[in-house]
């Protein structure tokens, strides 16, 4: 017992310094009006009241949910499909797997710059693929609300599907061959085998992937910062980008902190729900 305390100390210091302190200090900051012009002054929940009535902030909440739900849903489906495809490959499995992981290994900022070029109105790859040499038909994908939103979702799906595929692949390898064979002998077709044998067995792995993706998607910042900066007219702005604008260019530290706390609360709530689900499934299996 006496030995335990010093052993725990490094971990405890690390957790407090890098996890607890920033969270608590941001929560405290969110209770102040704080800008270089007015100084720091306690204001209770005023920043949160202001946030609840800020139309521009609420619009970013809407797109953040649209982005997170649609991109995660697409990534889960695409990831499982990729994993199923790779798991059947016997020859050259190693190199193929490396290629699949590649998008996940590319830094998001680099990927975002690349996607920005793909959607460019003058020399973008997408325009060339769709319209060929008919330059007059070329579209500015990032200039319209609907296509700009789709563009950001597409970039995220491209990048994160490989992460889901990787975890799903690990899950697939733990599916016992006897079960598949038994199902086959019983006359189950490939679709039925997938839904009744494979899917239930890889579900715990998929829930882990889902948890990570949901947390990541709700705190998206870099894709938006690089690709659109919230344009057109704030239609692609997300909560974290809004918080950045308040905190840094506009120097409203208290208000920016309140935005961060709300993002934190949303992610924490979703994570708790998901972790509980994962835990329960884990016990049943």
């Amino acid at each position: 017992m006496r030995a335990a305390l010093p052993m725990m100390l490094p971990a405890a210091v690390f957790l407090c310094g890098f996890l607890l302190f920033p969270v608590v200090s941001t929560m405290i900051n969110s209770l102040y009006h704080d800008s270089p012009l007015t100084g720091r002054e306690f204001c209770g929940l005023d920043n949160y009241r202001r946030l609840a009535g800020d139309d521009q902030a609420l619009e970013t909440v809407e797109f953040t949910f649209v982005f997170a739900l649609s991109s995660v849903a697409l990534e889960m489906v695409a990831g499982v499909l990729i994993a199923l495809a790779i798991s059947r490959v016997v020859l050259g499995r190693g190199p193929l797997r490396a290629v699949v992981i590649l998008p996940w290994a590319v830094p998001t900022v680099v990927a975002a710059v690349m996607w920005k070029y793909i959607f460019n109105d003058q020399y973008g790859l997408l325009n060339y693929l769709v319209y060929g040499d008919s330059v007059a038909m070329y579209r500015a994908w990032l200039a319209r609300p609907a296509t700009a939103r789709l563009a950001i979702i597409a970039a995220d799906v491209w990048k994160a599907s490989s992460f889901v595929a990787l975890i799903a692949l690990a899950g697939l390898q733990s599916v016992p061959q006897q079960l598949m064979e038994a199902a086959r002998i019983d006359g189950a077709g490939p679709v039925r085998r997938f839904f009744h044998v494979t899917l239930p067995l890889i579900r715990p792995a998929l829930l882990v992937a889902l948890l990570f993706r949901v947390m990541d998607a709700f705190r998206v910042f870099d894709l938006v910062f690089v690709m659109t900066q919230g344009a057109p007219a704030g239609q692609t702005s997300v909560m974290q980008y809004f918080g950045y604008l308040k905190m840094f260019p506009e120097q409203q530290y208290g208000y920016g902190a309140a935005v961060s706390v709300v993002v934190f609360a949303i992610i924490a709530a979703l994570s708790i729900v998901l972790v509980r689900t994962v835990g329960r499934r884990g016990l049943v299996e």
Partner: protein
Amino acid sequence: MDARVMCALATTGLLLAACGGGGPGETVTGITVVTWRPNSPGTWDRAIEMFEEANPDVRVELQTGPSSSTQLHDMLSQRLRNRDASVDVFVMDVVWPPEFAAAGWARPLDEAFGPEARGRFFEGTVEAVTWEGSVYGVPFFLDAGVLYYRTDLLSRYGLQPPETWGEMVRAADSVLLGEDDPSLYGYSAQMAQYEGLVCDMLELVGSAGGDLMQPGDEAAVRALRFARDSLVHLAGMTPPGILTYKEQESLELFASGGAVFHRNWPYAWALCADTAGSEIAGKVGISSLPSFPGGESVSALGGWSFGISAYSQHPEEAWRFVEHMTSPEVQRMFAVEVGKPPARRALYADSAVLAANPHFGPMEAVFEAAAPRPRSPLYPQISHRLQSFLHEAVGDPDSRIPRMAREAAADIAEILERAGG
């Protein structure tokens, strides 16, 4: 001069460092200068070399930040907010001084930069560094929106440079009709959702007699409707990507021969004339921006000044550096080598400056009259609200401009009332 300045700084209580400290050659003081990443590092290096030769007791360390004004502001404001004493001199965009003054980050320079010295600079550039009666910076160079046009295309169709926006659109139409080239557009400008959009729209709204801070007024609504219907959404007039264009993209289009007219800052002149990167060298004219009938041409004022940090430990050395960088010699060098319009009036009669920049002569009146953006310590907030309003107003073909303008004006009033937070 130095002695006078030192006394002046000392009397205003600015001089914290020991006055009796070493003369030239005894000790060397290092000062740190923060600027954006220059396109012309060679010119900066030469300017600093000149300074260090004349001031052997000072060593200058140049720290280059991001080239984007917004990101440089992020970086600089973080350091100044934390009272970082390692910054002595910084460059300020034309819209920053009210904020830097009100936050107490920039040192007042009233004594060192006196009324007589101020008179040698364009009035607009001095006004930009003035806040509540004190000056907080010394103008370095200025910028003002100008119209570039294709002389070859206009003369082919017997057209004159346009006086009004309507004439410009009609002239572009005639050229487009005659050329029948799907990759040629009428007009190229900066309409992405960013600071440049505020400048472009300030010019349009101002040239209709309106004010960007009163966006619901009839003149402003008229100008914004024109921008939406006759510039952004008129087929062929602007490229589809105009709503994502900043300076670089809009200039690339014009310099590759893709537009008849182009709104940009004076720096674009040298790039258009450069045969290496431009397909239209020798075919470009420059004029003041058009206006609406009955209105006057308005150019947005841009440009940069030098300020001294309130937390600098070496204000006297810092001042000597600022004085050097804003001297006629250095401003001439930047005008000749980099094409930056000097903030000092006298240089517009300078033969070396005019030889390198023949367009500065006719443009002097435009620079003199350039219109400032709204002046407020809360400008970053105001600008963000204006940007999202303007981008939707001109970008959405069905935008309801008067209603959106009322909302934007109400939000801006709220920003000013809250005054920070």
